[in-house]
């Protein structure tokens, strides 16, 4: 713009100034609206930046001169060019604290954002002809933001051609709150003291994973190595009352151990053996050993094959597991029916995007374990496992098979299963002990059945809706049974703990004739997970028989001590019931159980 003569009066100056502004604006407007008609419009070719003693310089190389509008912007300036085009690729230039970028806002309105410099205006602003002939260089000098020292001081070198800086660790200043509150960011950074890392493009020396994390046993990495782990446990059980016949001990104890050996022969071919054993001080039948797993697993893309003894869990509910049928229960362990006996099988699973299809072929039926004469909890009659009957005879080799579909969708998890073979739940027949003809015993019979099952869970945020249902066909009385319930979790109470509320309703249409003590029951419970480093959990629940046959109360608490110990305390209590029921036999066998496990 031409200088306005000083000798003119204020009004005149203002008039001339506004005249000039207007003419510039109008001509800019003309350029703006008719830019398409122009054969060649000015364009920016590149940016260069350089750092000098008390200023930083930005050079904008253009094909033709164009006067920009320079306005204050976040942390610097915005240089607006109207009717000027810019290169397709992002242009960047940096020197010292100055970082300049070209951005195209509106078709021919191009902006160059300059950051790291201070206002209120550029120190200098002038145009020079280009070094190599045509075009111009628009030079803008700025006052840099005050920093102690700068690195890239080479003038005229744009960041695009500078090699990528080494990745030194950043040392942030001590006080985090001031660093954040300080909007200008000044005083935030300090030169790093850390030793330099190798430049990118050069990998760090390969330190084998095992050296960094010798404890990690990542299956995918380790082949041909044997992994060995498990636990040893000591258990003490004081019973709260004398047993019904007065003969059984008031306090029992046992030690147990579970050990797993795993070996990966090659990628996708794994062997695993898990064995369990317990020695009980009071009940000789509770002293037993069990194979939970002894299998080969082959993984071939979406197909998985298992051969040998394995344990498989199906289901979604907490109090009763209706559809879970593959494995027999190791009943002598505990009355919560959660310990399983390994099942011999040839099984395959096919994983597809719509779900997993599995099939199981099981040649061997296994019977449930029960406490002996000296065992508690137990009814007055002992189960004589020596007289077991599988489908009429004593041959355990009976073929069973099962198939299952299991799918997972946005809110729904669903499983459909079918089983045809030897039942896992025994039917008891009164009999006489082989060794002692005067003594009455219960003889377990495992009949051939077919059972169809469905298990579902609907997950709605903190609320889980669960349900299982089965229908069984057998030679005595076909029946249906279902269980439905919910689990609602309140997260983050008292800082970190999660409390879950559970309720489930169980129905068995055999009514009073059911060989299981629970035909119409409600389960209510609460689970607290403290989310502490010791992974402390408490679960309290009650199964209440709606026909008035009493209630079964269960409380479990466990926590980790140190790195390798876990302590758990359980209480299992059957309340008094006046009506005759299968419960009645057990009601004097309430106990508290302390378990200490040491893992290795």
């Amino acid at each position, binding site marked *: 713009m031409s200088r306005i003569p000083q000798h003119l009066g204020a009004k005149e100056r203002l008039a001339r100034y506004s*005249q000039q*502004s*207007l003419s510039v*604006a109008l001509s*800019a407007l003309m350029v703006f609206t008719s830019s398409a008609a122009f054969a060649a419009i000015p364009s920016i070719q590149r940016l260069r930046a350089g750092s000098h003693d008390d200023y930083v310089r930005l050079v904008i190389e253009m094909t033709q001169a164009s006067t920009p509008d320079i*306005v204050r*912007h*976040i942390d610097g300036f915005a240089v607006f060019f109207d009717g000027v085009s810019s290169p397709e690729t992002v242009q960047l230039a940096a020197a010292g*604290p100055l*970082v300049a970028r070209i951005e195209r*806002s509106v078709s021919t309105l191009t902006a160059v954002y300059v950051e790291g410099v201070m206002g209120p205006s550029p120190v200098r602003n002038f145009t020079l002809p280009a070094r190599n002939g045509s075009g111009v260089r628009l030079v803008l000098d700025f006052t840099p933001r005050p920093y102690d020292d700068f690195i890239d001081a080479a003038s005229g070198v744009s960041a695009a051609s500078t090699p*990528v*800086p*080494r990745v030194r*660790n*950043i040392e*942030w200043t001590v006080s*985090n709150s001031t660093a*954040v509150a300080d*909007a200008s960011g000044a005083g*935030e*950074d300090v*030169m*790093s003291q850390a030793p330099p*890392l190798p430049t*990118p*493009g*050069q990998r760090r020396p*390969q*330190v084998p*994973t095992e050296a960094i*994390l010798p404890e*990690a046993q*990542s*299956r*995918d990495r380790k082949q041909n190595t044997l992994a060995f*782990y498990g636990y040893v446990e000591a258990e003490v059980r004081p019973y709260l009352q004398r047993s019904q016949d007065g003969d059984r001990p008031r306090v029992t104890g046992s030690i147990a151990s579970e050990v797993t050996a795993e070996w990966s022969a090659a990628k996708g071919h794994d062997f695993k053996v898990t064995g369990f054993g317990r020695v009980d001080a009071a009940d000789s039948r509770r002293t037993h050993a069990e194979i939970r797993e002894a299998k080969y697993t082959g*993984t071939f*893309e979406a197909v*998985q094959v298992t051969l040998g003894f394995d344990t498989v869990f199906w289901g*979604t509910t907490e109090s009763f597991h209706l559809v879970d049928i593959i494995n027999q229960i190791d009943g002598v362990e505990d009355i919560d029916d*959660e310990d399983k006996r390994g099942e011999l099988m040839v099984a395959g*699973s096919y*994983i597809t*995007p719509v779900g*997993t299809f599995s099939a199981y072929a099981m040649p061997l039926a296994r019977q449930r374990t029960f406490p002996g004469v000296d065992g508690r909890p137990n009814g007055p009659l002992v189960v004589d496992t020596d007289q077991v009957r599988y489908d009429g005879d004593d041959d355990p080799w009976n073929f069973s098979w099962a198939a299952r579909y*299991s799918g997972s969708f946005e809110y729904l*998890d669903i499983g459909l299963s079918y089983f045809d073979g030897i039942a896992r739940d025994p039917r008891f027949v009164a009999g006489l002990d082989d060794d002692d003809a005067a003594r009455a015993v219960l003889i377990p019979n495992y009949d051939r059945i077919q059972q169809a099952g469905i298990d579902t*869970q609907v*997950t709605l945020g*903190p*609320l*889980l809706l669960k349900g299982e249902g089965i229908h069984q066909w057998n030679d005595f009385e076909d029946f249906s049974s279902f269980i439905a319930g919910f689990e609602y979790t309140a997260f*983050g109470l008292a800082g970190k703990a*999660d409390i879950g509320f559970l309720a489930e309703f169980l129905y068995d249409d055999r009514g009073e004739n059911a060989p299981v003590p629970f035909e119409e029951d409600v389960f209510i419970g609460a689970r607290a997970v403290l989310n502490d*480093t010791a*992974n402390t959990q408490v679960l309290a629940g009650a199964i209440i028989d709606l026909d008035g046959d009493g209630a079964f109360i269960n409380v479990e608490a466990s926590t*980790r001590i140190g*790195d*390798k110990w876990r302590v758990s305390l359980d209480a299992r209590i059957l309340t008094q019931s006046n009506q005759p029921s299968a419960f009645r036999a057990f009601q004097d066998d309430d106990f508290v159980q302390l378990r200490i496990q040491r893992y290795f």
Partner: protein
Amino acid sequence: MRHLLPRLGAATAVFCLFVGGPLVAQSLDAKQRGDDIAREADSRDEGFIDSISDVEMVLRDAAGNEARRYLTIKTFESTESDEGNKSLLLFHKPLDVKGTALLTYSSLGDTDQQWLYLPALKRVKRISSSNKSGPFMGSEFSYEDMMPPEVERYEHRYLETVRCGEMQCFKLERVPVARASGYARQIAYLDTVEYRIHRVDYFNRRDVLIKTLYLKNYTLYDDTFWRAENMTMVNHQSGKTTDLIWGTFAFKNGFSSADFSRTAMKN
């Protein structure tokens, strides 16, 4: 005066075009810019296909007592545009949780799907994934913190460019979209050259600075992917810290979707 007014009027109008426009554009600009930076950072990470790394987690309390956790983290980059990534965490230590696995299917924006495998029962449970602010394994990282910062999870706003060590960093403010998030906002520092995150400040719902995450020892893999091998989360209120030390990453292992299925959790 008569001649001045029409000229002033026109001049003002055009003046506004040049000055007022940019001023309005500035605030939209900051959001757009923030979004652009976040997307650029995201795109720099695309194409890793899958990764596996063994991780050591060191929990330290204010007194200096340490507890260590070991786990393996496998991730699978989804090729579907409407699906997020999948991850499988396998726990090795402490020994009483050995074999426990957590499978997550991230969904962009909505709640994720998560399953927990309990080795003692051999049971896969679908769990609620709405609890993002709960602590992961008792550490100072919440589940929210462990998830990769996908662009759709936040509203970004560019604040300024600051110097960080030898580099310049974009300072971004990001506000979580999820209402269940434990944070009102976060401030992330990404370097201007490779868009790596070097530091994140976390502000709770009362806008108090509660935690800061430092990411260090960035290493370049496959000449393309930067991964920080050290992450330290400092809790300013309790004085506790958690270090995540990532063992060597392996990319493009040839994992398939079946390796991130519920069946795969049991191994």
